[in-house]
């Protein structure tokens, strides 16, 4: 059979499974306003997005994914009631790949996906997404695969439970997505003396009294006046003062304790069958006397729901550092890989929870959201191999 026919019949199969499970098929436009993507993801994605302008000068793009267009569709349909909604889609997304990237990395990617919005029972919604994804993959003909998952919220809970200034926690959370920056930051926080010492205050920055933060703004303002530096731009004196106070406070800190660094690294190294991995995280928590709050319970509950829904946990893995390549997720994250041995094959499907996206896109209410995208060409290859192209 020709590849195109296979791809089309695979698409019909995927969409049939989605529809059967109550997901409404939608067809969001391929051409999208660029700012929706750029503001939610930033320049990292823009590098790979085809951005152009229409004759009136409006900045548009070829959608680099279909989750954002689906979210915009949800907003348009439900901006008053924020009701529960389940959508599915099939179509192309476009991401620039350099000419050297090779045929296995095309710039036009066909994606099938499901997204659910507004379901308050989060683990239940996540279970549904994973279950329906696997059902669709199996119906399309994929027999062997691995499910890998993680949970950024659990990592955030761990950081919340560890002893450190709040601002360090925020920095560590933000850099989770960039492992190399994360390790640099962790090393820097562990040993602040390793960093080049800042010049003593007075010359380049004003001397602030940490015990009187309320006067700091005045001090900074007077310093700028004296140096004849005008305030320009939208960043306020408050914001600048706040961060100067944080920097001054950092200079007094002795750094993260080696215990805290060890716990963070131990957590990031945990991986294995989900129940075993969660048990190890539980041990880590108990031995360090930490409280992880509802995040760990949510992970355990999710795994139990997976088992009840018939998801095979024997070919599954939970990892503390999972998801460090994935964008805009806010909690549970997963991907499905071909069961091939040897090097790590690229995932066939990936998804997770993205509770902040609707608000980022202009929603006026917090809307829990979770979804998954299947890469159609990779799925086809996993089923049929690359022969008879």
């Amino acid at each position, binding site marked *: 059979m020709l590849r195109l026919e296979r791809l089309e019949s695979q698409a019909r199969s995927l969409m049939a499974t989605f529809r059967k499970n109550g997901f409404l098929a939608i067809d969001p436009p391929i051409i999208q306003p660029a700012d929706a993507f*750029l*503001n939610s993801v*930033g*320049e*990292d994605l*823009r*590098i790979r997005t085809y951005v152009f302008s229409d004759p009136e000068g409006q900045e548009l793009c070829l959608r680099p994914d279909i989750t954002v267009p689906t979210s915009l569709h949800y907003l348009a349909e439900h901006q008053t009631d924020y009701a529960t909604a389940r959508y599915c889609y099939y179509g192309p997304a476009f991401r620039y790949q*350099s*000419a050297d990237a090779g045929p296995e990395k095309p710039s036009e990617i066909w994606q099938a996906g499901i997204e659910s919005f507004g379901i308050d029972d989060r683990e239940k919604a996540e279970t549904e997404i994973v279950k329906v994804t696997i059902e669709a993959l199996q119906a399309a003909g994929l027999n062997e695969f691995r499910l890998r998952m993680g949970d950024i919220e659990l990592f955030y809970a761990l950081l919340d439970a560890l002893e450190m200034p709040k601002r360090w926690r*925020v*920095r560590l959370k*933000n*850099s989770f*997505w*960039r492992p*190399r*920056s994360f390790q*640099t930051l962790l090393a820097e926080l562990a040993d602040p003396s390793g960093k080049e010492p800042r010049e003593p205050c007075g010359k*380049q*920055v*004003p001397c602030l009294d940490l015990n009187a933060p309320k006067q700091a703004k005045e001090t*900074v303002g007077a*310093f*700028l006046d004296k140096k004849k*530096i*005008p*305030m*320009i*731009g*939208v*960043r306020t004196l408050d*914001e*600048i003062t706040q*961060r*100067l106070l944080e*920097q001054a406070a950092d200079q007094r800190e002795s750094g993260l304790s080696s215990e805290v660094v060890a716990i963070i690294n131990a957590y990031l190294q945990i991986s294995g069958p989900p129940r075993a991995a969660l048990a190890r995280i539980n041990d880590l928590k108990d031995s360090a006397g930490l409280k992880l709050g509802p995040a760990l319970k949510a992970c355990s509950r999710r795994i139990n729901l997976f088992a009840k829904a018939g998801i095979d946990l024997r070919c599954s893995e939970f990892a503390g550092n999972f998801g460090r390549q994935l964008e805009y997720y806010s909690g549970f994250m997963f991907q499905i890989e071909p069961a091939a041995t040897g090097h790590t094959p690229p995932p066939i499907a990936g998804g997770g929870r993205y509770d902040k996206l609707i608000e980022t896109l202009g929603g006026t209410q917090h809307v829990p959201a979770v979804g998954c995208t299947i890469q159609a060409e990779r799925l086809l290859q996993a089923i049929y191999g690359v022969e008879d192209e």
Partner: protein
Amino acid sequence: MTETADKLILAIPSKGRLMAKTMDLFADAGHAVVRVGHERGYLGEIIGLPNVEVRFLSASEIAYQLRAGLVHLGITGEDLVRETIVNTGKHVDFIARLGFGHADVVIAVPKCWLDVNAMSDLEDVGQAFYEKHGHRMRVATKYTTLTRRFFAGHRLVKPPGQPHPQWQAEMGPVVSGYVIVGSVGATEGAPAAGTAEFIVDITSTGTTLTANHLKVLDDGIILKSEAMLVASKMARWSETTQEIRTLFEDSLKAKVT
């Protein structure tokens, strides 16, 4: 072989100091450039080298034409070549630094940002800025390629034994969570006008930056640029044009101090 196939097309900046310095350097090296026809025309020739056709073009147009292979050799700023030609090594060869047109492509932020002096500060401020203002930090620049690469942690590093630097990944701090707003002119005014938070722009003396209340980040020099003699790998080269290239390379290099 036809006559046109054996002609080397040399692009020279069509105005300003860059043109004057280029003409001086060629004359110095024994290859005086003269305009052909109308005084304001855009064609020229080199006395004694009938196989060379000189075209006077804007500095940025030269970079485009080198990429497209429409000219064999061009003299233009390294900044424009690296900005215009994303895959520089595939399309062009840097032949010689010419010793003029020095300028740095830098990241400059408002002086009043007393808490921001390095790339790592920008990364730090980005998230708080987004949460407070509801949009990403905006960077005004015409150097979108250079900015993205530099902010993705790539650095121009000179490999051992090679004359010109190449981009290398994972060499420096990463800045994320920003968006580029295009700027074609007066980039340095954008922060004061409130249309961008900071800029990436070219500076030679720093006077314009200072006048606009901006300061360069300590580790914010993206590229130390100067005028270069650049060869297009996309143009068709014959034995004759190759010989002329070598002639220019040797004679110009001998005059550059």
